[in-house]
């Protein structure tokens, strides 16, 4: 019994949602447009929309002045690396919590989440001193580890809530049929868990990509990711809106495109147990 939808209603909803959607997207669109303007056009009064001399000179300038490929590479390595490392540690933990819950399981989980509230700058000096002691300042491995630790609680929790949705009866049934633990994991659980894991990976890549305290303060050159690259263009002398826009687009485009292509996977597991 489907609801009757009048075309007029549908058109109305379409117009409304597109309007709001474009409004929310507008700052990004405006940045994109500005990045192709000359500095003078970027602040012209009144603002110009599409009819200007499109130029790529801002991108050329930004590329000349900084090492974009290295920053991009660092961002990718740090975001993906910390996520994978986090998943490796989190999957067994979340698994165990979901399927063999003990008395203390919930406490452990909540305690993990509370570590996430550690205010970063409060532990800045200790961390810098530790990193210096091990000689790993400005290295990718340091950033991978720190971002993994920052996001691990979220990873564990997200996986835990996802695994919990998997009905235990299926496991029982498989066990009755004589499946070993190994087979149980490979053939029964994994296929059911994949969407949750995929979505966790995506969310954490986004979080790690956008982390902007540790990535700026613990890096100089070798491990400096896109968050630091942006700081070169944030407020130099003279007009800078167009160059800032170009640098911004270069910093967000990779993750934005990844996000758009994988949004279905992202959304599927992004429930944190909110849906029952």
């Amino acid at each position, binding site marked *: 019994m489907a609801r009757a939808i009048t075309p007029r209603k549908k058109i109305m909803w379409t117009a409304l949602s597109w309007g709001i959607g474009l409004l929310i997207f507008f700052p990004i669109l405006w940045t994109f447009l500005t990045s192709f303007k000359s500095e003078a056009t970027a602040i012209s009064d009144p603002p110009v929309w599409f009819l200007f001399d499109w130029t790529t000179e801002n991108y050329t300038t930004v590329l000349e*002045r900084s090492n974009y490929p290295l920053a991009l590479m660092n961002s990718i390595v740090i975001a993906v690396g910390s996520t994978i490392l986090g998943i490796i540690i989190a999957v067994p933990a979340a698994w165990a919590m979901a399927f063999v819950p003990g008395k203390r399981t919930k406490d452990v989980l909540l305690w993990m989440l509370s570590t996430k509230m550690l205010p970063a700058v409060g532990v800045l000096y200790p961390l810098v001193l530790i990193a210096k002691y091990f000689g790993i300042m400005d290295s990718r491995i340091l950033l991978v580890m720190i971002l993994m630790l920052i996001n691990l609680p979220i990873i564990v929790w997200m996986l835990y809530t996802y695994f919990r949705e998997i009905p235990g009866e299926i496991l029982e049934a498989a066990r009755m049929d004589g499946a070993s633990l190994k087979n149980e994991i490979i053939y029964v659980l994994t296929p059911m868990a994949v969407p949750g894991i995929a979505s966790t990976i995506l969310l954490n890549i986004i979080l790690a990509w956008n982390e902007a305290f540790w990535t700026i303060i613990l890096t100089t050159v070798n491990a400096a990711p896109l968050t630091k690259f942006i700081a070169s263009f*944030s*407020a130099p002398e*003279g007009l800078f809106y167009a160059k800032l826009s170009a640098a911004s687009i270069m910093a967000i485009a990779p993750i934005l495109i990844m996000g758009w292509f994988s949004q279905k996977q992202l959304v599927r597991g992004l429930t944190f147990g909110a849906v029952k």
Partner: protein
Amino acid sequence: MNTKRILRGTTVGLGLIAGLASVAVAEEITIATVNNGDMVRMQALSSNWEEATGNTINWVVLEENVLRQNVTTDISTGGGQYDVMTIGTYEAPIWGRNDWLVSLNEGMADDWNADDLLPAIRGGLTVDGTLYAAPFYGESSMVMYRTDLMEKAGMEMPDAPTWDFIREAAAAMTDRDNEINGICARGKAGWGENMAFLTAMSNSFGARWFDMDWKPQFDSQEWADTIDFYLGMMKESGPAGAANNGFNENLTLFQQGKCGMWIDATVAASFVTNPEDSTVADKVGFALAPDNGLGKRGNWLWAWSLAIPASSQKVDVAKDFVSWATSQGYTELVAENEGWANVPPGTRTSLYENQAYLDAAPFAEMTLQSINSADPQNPTVQDVPYTGIQFVAIPEFAGIANQVGQQLSNALAGNQTGEEALKNAQALTVEEMEAAGY
């Protein structure tokens, strides 16, 4: 087949060794600098140095606040991430005293002439006879004004104006319908932003940060007069978003022709007279920073300088670079590429004796006069226990002045009165100074 593989392995091995050997000769240094125009230019021209020496540079070019965050953390933990750091006259003596910086008294290139440095600038970077940083460009502050608007207002700018004249002229030039603000000045909170301007201004009103017993003085009449005058003038003739305007925002406004006058760093003179960026390039005049007849002018002294942290492993190469970037030769290189008007100003006497520069830079004389008239040892009318004009050369200053700056910026935004701002400033400064053990 086996021998072939061994042979191939050997050649690869030999090649690797040869490669390593050639790499070992050249050094790689890491330089942290601000993303100001002159430094970006240095970055572009540094390939000359790289080619001449075979060394390579890793540039870390950052916005001022982020740069400070990074280099301060590095220097105070002895992190050793940088071989050259860009710092100012505030940091140099404090860090030098802690032995965090390498002395530049020796080991600089032979043609790097220390005696040619302007005495005021050199003095600011020296502690007990040891030079801790080489000035890249130096600045004082002065009045930049629109000659056409001044004429239209029927007034004439003296070479050494008073604050009253500035206020009157600002009111006369203001034309809000045409988006012309008589006066632009810093309002954005920060010890290097509004507090630089206000502290220098307060000196000419006879105010001081601390008395000889290190007691904060924001409750004094002189400070009340300074802030009252500043807020009044900015309200009458300042731009709408003044409380968010720092150096860069005001520069943009002036270049767009939205300011009648602008009191700020002398280094801005070359930007506002550069026809490529400025719409008012041919209509700019210069005057000394204003005074109040008390014998002190409201101009500061600052030098962005290159220093080598003691934790650097490549001091010799770093010194070679610093010598190159702060030498007369570098000035000539910039002149050759970008014209004399764009060379980094305010560090060397020889520049101000160079006729080619004086011809190309109409602001040269005023810059030199402003720098020479700045006296960090005796910044204000009364005696003070500290040195520094727009800052107080103690480690606690940056933290305190940032908070005081926020109070005053908030007053400029109209969210509290000047009186309240000064009262809060006094309270928090007393608190911080007590915590610091004064």
